[in-house]
């Protein structure tokens, strides 16, 4: 299964930066959906909990919700949409491996996989 891994980019507190990053994700995802391929968004666990500023939180939580909606649409066409969230110390290769697994799984969609242990005991996003 081919597809795209989209890493969320760091943003500041300026709305223009937030909108630009969400628009970048939208444009990329729409193209992937049109090609009927799968995708994985990669975000930071701390951003899902709002710990690194409002801008990054809006991007991370926005991408998670968008992936859930895309998963509903993709399930009718056979492509998948998932999210990987990682703790700050996680190494990029491990995160990339999990994202690749989700792209290849085919039967897992709309899921959030959290790499690391920082999410334990915290809110479910």
């Amino acid at each position, binding site marked *: 299964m081919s597809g795209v891994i989209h890493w969320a980019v760091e943003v500041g507190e300026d*709305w223009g930066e*937030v*909108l630009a990053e*969400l*628009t970048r994700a*939208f*444009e990329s*995802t*729409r193209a992937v*959906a*049109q090609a009927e391929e799968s995708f994985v968004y990669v975000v930071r666990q701390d*951003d*899902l*909990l*709002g*710990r690194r*500023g*409002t801008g*990054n*939180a*809006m*991007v*991370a*939580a*926005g*991408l*998670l*919700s*968008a992936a*859930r*909606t*895309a*998963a*509903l*649409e993709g399930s009718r066409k056979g492509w998948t949409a998932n999210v990987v969230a990682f703790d700050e110390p996680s190494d990029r290769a491990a995160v990339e491996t999990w994202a690749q697994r989700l792209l290849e799984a085919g039967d897992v969609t*709309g899921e959030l996989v959290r790499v690391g242990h920082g999410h334990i005991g915290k*809110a479910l*996003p």
Partner: protein
Amino acid sequence: MNGTIVVTGAARGIGRAIAEKMAASGPFIVIGVDIAPELALSEAITPVQVDLTTVEGPAMVRETVEASGFPLVGLVNNAGITRDARLVNMTDDDFAAVLEVNLGAAYRLSMALAPLMSEGGAVVNIASRAYLGNFGQFNYSMSKGGVVGMTRALALSLAPGIRVNAVAPGLISSEMSMGIPEEVRERMVEAIPLDRMGTPDEIADTVWWLLTPLSSYITGEVIVVGGGRSLS
């Protein structure tokens, strides 16, 4: 008067119900904000007609709050729109419009008004059950997920003085839901365990609870008001 409360998207539907509930329930100055020209509310509500997606919009609301002469004790970010389409067909304009109104306006207004909020104040952001995913609403779902993220971040940054929570309504009987074709709406209701649409007043009641000391130990949470639809 105990203070001022700002409610956006107050011209109709959920926002109107919230503004009227606030005006009727306590000794507050309620400022109703909407872009709609038909912002005719009860005499107890001060109308402010502005476009919150502009730089000037939030500044005008801020000026109105300062002119009220009372501390700001509540902000309800409710204004929202939909421009539904399947992701593969969604236009750039429909994406941007929904993000600007549903998320950008709420963020800008929160930033403009947070410095005015008094100790013990509360912010309630109206998200949507669509933040859990909803077919044909990539833009709306992303915007409401963004609202949830904003809620969590502001809950941390404005603590301990100000609480910030979100309400995520499900299918509510309002102008927005009346735009859904009837047979689709009927199918949606069949999937709701409580077997009916919610009412704007039921959302207003939840918002009221989150604005008042009744919920004084709750911050950073999302309260889904959806008749059990998230389970069915």
